[in-house]
């Protein structure tokens, strides 16, 4: 028999987390990594994985001591476990993105037919089937390429620049984050109406 208080904890965690829990939690994660003498930056794993696969033969950019960065791969592996745990044990009553009414309207204009409260957490095109459609291919393969290329060009992603860099008052990170938003606004406002 599982004690009641454990079920209560599970139910408590299973609620959607408000921003004021998630934000400080992310800062705590950054602190833990700094305390271990490391830096919070997930996209660095892409470079590590390239180097581990022998990309150093093609570019000096991948000739570095990637073995010493194994800890970061463990963070990525842990994130996968975290995604598994959250989706299997702490899912709560439904798998819904609690987006605003205005967002539901904007989605309808692009052809999504969700009603308020029915918007799923992830879109249907996150599937192997849709990978064989032009749109799915653009989103998964094109999106992946842009994220991998852009993160390394900018020297970091959301964790490295928006969280770690801004926390340390780094001007380059602010420029990068402005860039993230310029790119995001171009995509969602100018390219999505063509793509969807």
């Amino acid at each position, binding site marked *: 028999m599982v004690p009641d208080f454990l079920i209560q904890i599970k139910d408590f965690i299973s609620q959607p*987390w408000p*921003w*004021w*829990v*998630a934000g400080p939690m*992310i800062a705590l994660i950054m602190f833990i990594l*700094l*305390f*271990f003498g490391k830096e919070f930056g*997930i996209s660095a794993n*892409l470079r590590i994985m390239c180097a581990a696969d022998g990309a150093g033969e*093609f570019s000096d950019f991948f000739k570095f001591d990637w073995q010493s960065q194994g800890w970061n791969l*463990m963070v990525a*592996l842990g*994130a*996968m476990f*975290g*995604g598994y745990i*959250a*989706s299997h044990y*702490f899912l709560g009553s439904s798998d819904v993105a*609690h*987006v*605003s009414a205005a967002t539901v309207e*904007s989605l309808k204009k692009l052809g999504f037919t969700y009603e308020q409260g029915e*918007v799923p*957490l*992830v879109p249907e095109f*996150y599937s192997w089937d849709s990978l064989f459609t032009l749109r799915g291919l*653009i989103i998964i393969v094109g*999106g*992946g*390429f842009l994220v*991998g290329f*852009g*993160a*390394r*060009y*900018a*020297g970091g*992603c*959301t964790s490295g*620049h*928006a*969280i*770690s*860099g801004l*926390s340390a*008052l780094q001007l*380059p990170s602010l*420029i*990068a984050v402005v*860039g*993230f938003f*310029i*790119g*995001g606004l*171009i*995509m969602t406002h100018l*390219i999505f109406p063509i793509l969807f």
Partner: protein
Amino acid sequence: MKISRYIFVGILLGVTLYKAEAVSWFRIFEMFHFQSFHMYGIIFSAVIAGMGIVYLIKRTHMKSTEGQEIVFHPKDRSVPRYLIGGIIFGLGWSLAGVCPGPMFILMGSGYTVFIVFLAAAMFGTFTYGLLRSRLPH
């Protein structure tokens, strides 16, 4: 083992971003339409808490578990690199609805198609490595 502690850090990250819906394509869409405070709240509160943490670390000359003082390396001063790179990243982030963290998180939660996304992202990073010397920095 010493390295296993990083798995726990990753689990904390994964559960947090999943439960806060930061892994949701629709939340990213909403953010770029300025239709909810949610994502901004996550980023702003993380950065404000982070600024306090960085301030305290510097103020107290805190040492890491490795025994050395925690230092912050200033990033190279430049505009084109961060702006152009940032725009390219932003295009991909908003298109696919995921940045590198959620990429791993969604892969773990059962969306195995993100293996293809990861391969594409690695190829993007590899392409950057090849073109690096020819790009403005």
